[in-house]
C-alpha cells in the first residue's frame, strides 16, 4: 500500500483541480505522486511537465519545505504524512 501524502496546490493551479487547495495522493516517490495527479487532472500535468519526466523549470517542488533539487528530484522518496508543495518559481531580487 503506497504512502499517502498531502499535496499543496498554489492559487494559480487550483482551477485545474476543481478548485481544491490540498489533495491527498498515494505514492512512494515524487514522480509517482505527480504521475497520479497528471492522470487524474491532465490540465495540471500539462502545466507541471515540459515533457515526460521533465518538470517545467519554472515550477519548484518541495517535500516538507525542501526543494527536491536538493534531494533526489523526481525520484525523491516519500513517507506517509509528507507534505509536497507545488510552487511557481518566483523571480526575486535582493
Amino acid at each position, binding site marked *: 500500500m503506497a504512502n499517502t501524502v498531502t499535496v499543496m496546490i498554489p*492559487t*494559480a493551479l487550483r482551477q485545474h483541480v476543481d478548485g481544491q487547495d490540498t489533495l491527498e495522493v498515494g505514492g512512494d516517490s515524487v514522480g509517482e505522486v505527480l504521475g497520479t495527479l497528471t492522470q487524474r487532472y491532465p490540465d495540471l500535468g500539462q*502545466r507541471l511537465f515540459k515533457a515526460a519526466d521533465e518538470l*517545467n*523549470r*519554472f*515550477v*519548484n517542488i518541495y517535500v516538507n519545505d525542501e*526543494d527536491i*533539487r*536538493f534531494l533526489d528530484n523526481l525520484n525523491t522518496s516519500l513517507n506517509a504524512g509528507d507534505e509536497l508543495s507545488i*510552487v*511557481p*518559481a*518566483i*523571480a*526575486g*531580487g*535582493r
Partner: protein
Amino acid sequence: MSYVKSLKCKECGTEYPIEPRTVCDVDFAPVEVCFDYDAMRGTVTRESIEAGPRSLWRYKDLLPIESEPRAGLRSGMTPFLRADRLAAELGVRELFIKDDSANYPTFSYKDRVVSVALTKAVEFGFDTVGCASTGNLAHSVSAHAAAAGLQAFVMIPHDLEEGKIVGSLVFGPRMVRIKGTYDDVNRLCSQIADKYHWAIVNVNLRPFYTEGAKTHGFEIVEQNGWRIPDHTVVPVAGGTILPKVYKAYREMIDLGLVEDTGPKIHAAQAEGCNPVVTAIEEGQELFRPQKPATIAKSIAIGNPADGFYVIDAVSTSGGGGASARDPEIIDAVKLLAATEGIFTEPAGGTTLACTIKLIESGQIPRDESICVCITGNGLKTVEVMSEHGAFAPFPAIEAKIKAFDELVKQIDEEVVPTPERAAG
C-alpha cells in the same frame, strides 16, 4: 512618446497587455517588456540621448514608462573611469570601472531598477509599494518611496544587519521582519502582492523593474565615447543585471547607435554561492540550486530565477564565468580601494576578483578593453571589512612628536594588496 508595446513570455511567447504581472500564466516563466524598435530608429539617436537630463532618464525612450519619470530624477549617470593604476597592477591595456557605489540616493545599482518600478507604480495607480530584500533593495525602495510620497512596506528576514535596518528605517517605511530566510520572505511577498494589490517591485512589477538595469549598460557605452567595451564583467545574484546589460548593448547596436564589435559578457559569483557560474563552466543550460555560504551576502542567492537568462546571455556573447573565494573577495576590495580610491562591498570585490581570474586564464585577453561593474558601496557592509579585512592593529600614540617619530621608524612594509593575493 512611449515605445512600449506589450509584455511577452520569454519562453512560450504569450503576449500580455501592460499591467502588473509576475510571471506568464501558461508556464510561469518570466515576462519581458517589448518595445517598438522600428519606431525608435532614427528618432532615438546619440543626439537625442545626449540632449536628455544628466540622469538615467536620458534613456527614457528605452524604458517602460508611459509619461514622465516619478522617481530617481537624480539617479544614474554614475562615474565611469579609466582605471589606469589598477590596469597597470593587473597587466592589462585598458580597464574601466562603472561605479554604482556612487549612485544616488542609496549608493547601489538598485536605484536604477527602483526608479523605473516606482514610476510605473504611480502610473498603475498604486499608493503602496514594497519589496523583499536583505539590503540594497530595501534601502533604495525606502528612500525613493519617501521622496515620491508613497507608502512603503519592506519585508526583510528577521536577522538583517543593523546598519541596513537603520539605513532603511530612517526614511519611514513600514518594515516587517519575517521569521525565515530570504526565500521565505520572497515567497510571502508574492502572496502579499496577490492579496493586497500592492506594487511589490521585484515581484509583480518585475518586468518593468528589471528594465531599469539596462541603464547601467547604456551609460557604460555612452561614457566610453559610444563604444562597447570588449569585455564586461557583471556580478550575478538573482540574475537581473547581467542579461539587461547585454540587452542594453544589443539595443544600442540594433538602433544603429554603436558598432557591433562582438562584446563578451562574463559572470562573476562567489565560490560559496555559484550555481550559475558552475553551469556555465560545465556547459549546462540548467543550473543546480545551492545553499549559499559566503560573506558576499548581497549576491548570495542559491536559486536565481533569472539564472537561465544569465547563462543564455553569457553563452550567446561568447563570454565565460569565474568564482572567487571569500579571502580573494576581501583582497580585491582592498586592491580596488588602494589603486582607484573606490570602496565597494563584497559583491564588487567578487566582480574584480573574478575579472582577475578571467584575465589570468586568458578568457579576457590583456590587450582588449575591460569594464568591471561595481554595484554597491563598502560603507554599507563595513562590518565585513572589520571582521575579515585583516587590518593590522594600531594602538594610539601620545600626542608628542617623539612618539610620532618612533611610529614612522616602525612602519615597515605595509600589507599592500597585490593582484596575486586577490587572485588567490
